[in-house]
């Protein structure tokens, strides 16, 4: 099927790789002959299976950054909570960060496990209309997932092929930082099914923007439509004196200028609110806990823009 077999060495380049069966690590692997002859390559039948599985999903949105720690998972979680406020919508949230899966904690689902049915893997439900999938549900809390690319790709494929998402209005896909295996794979596996758009998260500083520009170029290269850029951690209001200050100064113009330079929409700025970090750690929906926070208002405005943009496509 093109997946890395269970009996492959941990250095396996993957049966679909150019090096399949030819690397020194392939010596002794039972699949070496098949890989080297190209028998395990060819059109991936799983892409059809994924297309079928996701046929009931109306919109698929990737949350990307390039930079770590800017708030992708926080945004994905709060966005999913917000979308699921309307009972009329069915929402799925998929966490493809295999090494650092934050989504279970952010949704208050730590310790939950994935159940299998004859329809496939069942997402873990926060509430009736919000289902979640993450490798976090499949491992012990402190267990490190020490996998090379091909094994990570295999898991991501299973999330797409084997999870019984059923009918969804939105599937939000939270990603790890970078432009590597996970990003290439999700793009590849969703080639048939299609991605409706990507939201790029940044913070105001240049070290973040530098990585996000690369991610934008990655999206353009692989043909993922960009819904826009969100500038997170943008300013701080002191809970004591209400004075405003900039913690992560936009030394080169911040997310707004970068979006303009890269010719992509700018969706808005979200300020820092210490209560948001706490809500995340507690797995709570920040916007209903603190409806008057400037961060809540920012989220509301940004979400409106995203819904407009994605409907328009």
């Amino acid at each position: 099927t093109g997946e890395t077999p269970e009996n492959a060495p941990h250095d396996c380049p993957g049966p679909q790789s150019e090096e399949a069966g030819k690397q020194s690590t392939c010596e002794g692997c039972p699949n070496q002959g098949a890989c080297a002859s190209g028998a395990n390559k060819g059109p991936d039948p799983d892409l059809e299976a994924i297309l079928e599985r996701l046929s009931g999903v109306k919109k698929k949105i990737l949350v990307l950054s390039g930079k770590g720690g800017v708030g992708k998972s926080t945004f994905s979680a709060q966005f999913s909570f917000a979308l699921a406020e309307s009972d009329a919508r069915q929402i799925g949230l998929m966490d493809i960060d295999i090494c650092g899966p934050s989504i279970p904690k952010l949704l208050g689902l730590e310790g939950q496990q994935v159940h299998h049915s004859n329809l496939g893997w069942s997402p873990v439900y926060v509430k009736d209309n919000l289902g979640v999938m993450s490798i976090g549900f499949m491992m012990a809390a402190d267990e490190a997932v020490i996998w090379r690319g091909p094994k990570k790709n295999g898991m991501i494929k299973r999330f797409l092929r084997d999870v019984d998402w059923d009918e969804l209005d939105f599937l939000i896909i939270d990603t790890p930082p970078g432009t590597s295996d996970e990003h290439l794979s999700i793009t590849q596996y969703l080639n048939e099914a299609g991605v409706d758009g990507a939201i790029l998260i940044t913070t105001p500083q240049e070290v973040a923007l530098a990585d996000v520009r690369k991610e934008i170029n990655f999206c353009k290269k692989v043909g993922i439509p960009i819904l826009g850029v969100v500038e997170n951690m943008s300013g701080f209001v002191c809970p004591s004196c209400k004075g405003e200050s900039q913690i992560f100064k936009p030394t080169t113009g911040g997310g707004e200028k970068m979006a303009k330079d890269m010719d992509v929409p700018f969706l808005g700025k979200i300020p820092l609110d210490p209560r948001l970090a706490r809500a995340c750690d507690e797995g709570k929906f920040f916007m209903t806990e603190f409806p008057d926070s400037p961060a809540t208002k920012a989220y509301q405005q940004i979400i409106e823009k995203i819904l407009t943009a994605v409907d328009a496509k």
Partner: protein
Amino acid sequence: RMQTKDIKHIILVLSGKGGVGKSTVSAQIGYALVKRGKKVGLLDVDLCGPSLPQLLGLSGKDVKRSTQGWVPVYADASQRMCCMSIGFLLPSPDSAIVWRGPKKNAMIKQFLEEVVWGELDYLIIDTPPGTSDEHISLIEYLQDSNPDGAVIVTTPQGVSLADVRKEISFCQKVNMPILGLIENMSGYACPHCAECTNIFSSDGGKLLAEELDLKFLGKIPIDPVLTEQSDLGSNFIEKFPDSPSLNSVMNLVDSLIGSDRMNIGA
């Protein structure tokens, strides 16, 4: 084959979690070690998001070749600090390195085999977040180079600690000694009223270190001046000698210098 024989101490900077300040802390450790009279190399194995050139004010520099290999980029005329990063090899700063694992591993191997590090007191290796190809390969390639161990960086909040626990588990699995834990972004003093707000919670790193019996190297506060200087690629330590963040950094480096191989008995 690794060009690491004349390097006295090799220290990895790890996290598990992205955006906690690994690269910032790596750069500050570099500057602080130089201040303590050491000769330092900084190796950036984050191939997707290489931040070190920017943080060290070396953006746009080229890597030169000599007969023995690649010459690392020197940060100063006295050649007390040098750096290697894929950032120096990109055709343009906005180019994305869209490589799968095997190509990334090959690059990291080249950095260790082909860079002429020369005689160094310390090689600080900045890593990307996670526990994947780069980390597995780095540990494998360093097997014969006898690294001192890893410094783990975290922020205080739960979501970071969750990933850091995994990284600690990874270190234990691959027998990488942990030199200590740093709690970064620990508290913010409002410039208007000086009230300290724990934006990303507080004490999480310290408590984790206690729980897992790891050395706690200290807290570094959120410091917009440090962040700004990092963006500008300035030597914060030289420019702001009175900053409370500077004290935190110098203390942690002094603690590290005291924790060399002989003391930790790895």
